[in-house]
């Protein structure tokens, strides 16, 4: 026993501190150079886009100027102009901001709701699980694109928040299902049973015991969902059901490529947006992968 205790004491270098969760995540990202570069670029893009968008005047950018139609990149217009004579660079900045905002909002709303839904269904199981999963099934069989299009056309006040809520309302089922299946496994483990015998309330067990233990799954899904949601928004805007041209997004810029003339001869209108979508998704994925490793002590590099 004496020896044992001495060994234990030796193992502790600094008994006052132990690495917190955030520190571990940070260490892992620093160790993975690709993820670090991705994160820095992502932060730079985000800061730049949100910062510049404050300075830029959206009304000024989206004003039609018939004397400057289809200008190629020049000193005045860094990335040229579109068919309405609108500055593509300005649209790109504001469009990226809008797309990012929607991506974050949709991920946050659908994530919070989906996680809570899945955890409750999985943890309680039985009748609760059955009832909740039938509600989920109902939502899942609804045609997503059609309903979003319908809601988008009937909503009176079409803002970024409104669009995000509509998208999130039909987008939480996947994560809920995933979390439920994990929660079903997790609740059978002894530590959950132990918490019950120790008198911890169900709410506390669900959110303080079970949820941290599936956090790796949550982080990975949320990060991948973020990339996917930016993609879905761009897709809807591309189809013409996102924002009007007065509110640019990456998707509206891309949709100019539906015109064969633009696609072939006016690359400056759609290539930057396409490249930006690609780069951002790749970077988000890199960061997500590093975070996933960080949440599992066995896979950590840091």
């Amino acid at each position, binding site marked *: *026993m004496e020896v044992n*205790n001495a060994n*234990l*004491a030796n*193992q*502790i270098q600094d*008994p006052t*501190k*132990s690495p917190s969760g955030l520190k571990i995540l940070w260490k892992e990202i620093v160790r993975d150079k690709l993820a670090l570069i991705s994160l820095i670029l992502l932060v730079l893009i985000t800061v730049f886009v949100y910062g510049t968008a404050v300075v830029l005047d959206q009304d000024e950018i989206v004003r039609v100027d018939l004397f400057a139609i289809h200008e190629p990149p020049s000193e005045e217009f860094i990335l040229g102009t579109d068919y309405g004579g609108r500055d593509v660079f300005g649209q790109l900045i504001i469009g990226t901001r809008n797309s990012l905002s929607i991506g974050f909002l949709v991920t946050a709303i659908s994530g919070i709701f989906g996680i809570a839904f899945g955890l409750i269904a999985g943890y309680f199981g039985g009748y609760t699980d059955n009832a909740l999963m039938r509600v989920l099934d109902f939502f899942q069989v609804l045609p997503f694109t059609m309903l979003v299009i319908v809601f988008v056309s009937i909503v009176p006040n079409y803002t970024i928040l409104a669009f995000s809520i509509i998208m999130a309302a039909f987008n939480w089922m996947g994560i809920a299902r995933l979390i439920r299946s994990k929660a079903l496994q997790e609740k059978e*483990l*002894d*530590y959950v*049973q*132990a*918490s*019950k*015998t*120790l*008198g*911890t309330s169900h709410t506390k067990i669900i959110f303080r*015991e079970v949820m*941290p*233990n599936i*956090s790796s799954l949550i982080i990975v899904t949320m990060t991948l969902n973020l990339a996917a949601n930016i993609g879905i928004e761009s897709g809807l805007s591309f189809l013409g059901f996102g924002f009007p041209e007065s509110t640019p997004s990456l998707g509206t810029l891309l949709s100019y490529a539906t015109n064969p003339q633009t696609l072939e001869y006016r690359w400056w209108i759609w290539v930057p947006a396409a490249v930006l979508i690609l780069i951002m998704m790749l970077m988000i994925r890199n960061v997500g992968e590093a975070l996933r490793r960080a949440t599992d*002590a066995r896979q950590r590099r840091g």
Partner: protein
Amino acid sequence: MAILEVEDLKVYFPIKAGILNRTVDHVKAVDGVSFSIEQGKTYGLVGESGSGKTTTGRAVIGLESIYSGKVSFNGTDITNFGRENSALRKDVQMIFQDPYSSLNPRKRVLDIISEPLRNFEKLSKTEEKKRVQELLEIVGLSPESILKYPHEFSGGQRQRIGIARAIALKPKLIIADEPVSALDVSVQAQVLNFMQDIQKELNLTYLFISHDLGIVKHMCDDIAIMYKGRYVEQGTITDIFNNPQHIYTKRLVSAIPDINPRNREKQYRIRQEVQREYANSFNDYFDSEGLAYGLQPVSDTHLVALPERG
């Protein structure tokens, strides 16, 4: 007065079948078990795997729903432990079998052991830390370990953390579900002796679930042998080990290894004989379904499941 009384406890698990998923039958995991434990005593539940001993323990603490029967603690009915009597949670705690899954891997030792304290006692951060360090000292771990995570400990040390958590609220009854079966034999003795020490110190009552007769002999005052959800024999240590009445108990007792090599031949012959008796008289001791009969008293403390004669 008995601290824990269990009357005719039944835990059935439904078997669902058919298109409508109706309950067609039940698995009778625990089928009419009654016992009572006095304050400060250790009551052993012994049986092979699947005999329902763990289910009995889990039903008492409210982790399995009870089909019928009654469980009372200090005279209070705790059959529906899950919903009511949350105050009594303090007095009944459990030590789990597997020290690897019973501690939340995401929580530090401090948070694990202080979980019951946070639920029932309003302590300041410093008081809480002091209590946890005291508890760690009681279970023989270094008080500096409070900021470590469970995976940094060995199995034996983890089980001690589990015990520290169980005794944090100074409970009156601890249900120990095979507390040492996942540990090395050398560590087993340590943990068991330690459990006896704190039993004396805190006047604890144990419901000790095990399949190891040697350990049960070492730990318990009274024991019960279970088979297929029913009691086969119940009595004090001397009743069971020196005067086994039921053929199943005889077989179990004869299976305990003898440390003296000179008795090897003798032991072998006894075992052979018991085995023969078991094969021959199985039908006398078990009913047509292979289940044990109701308990008949042999003496004041000794009950055996024998068919009613005459």
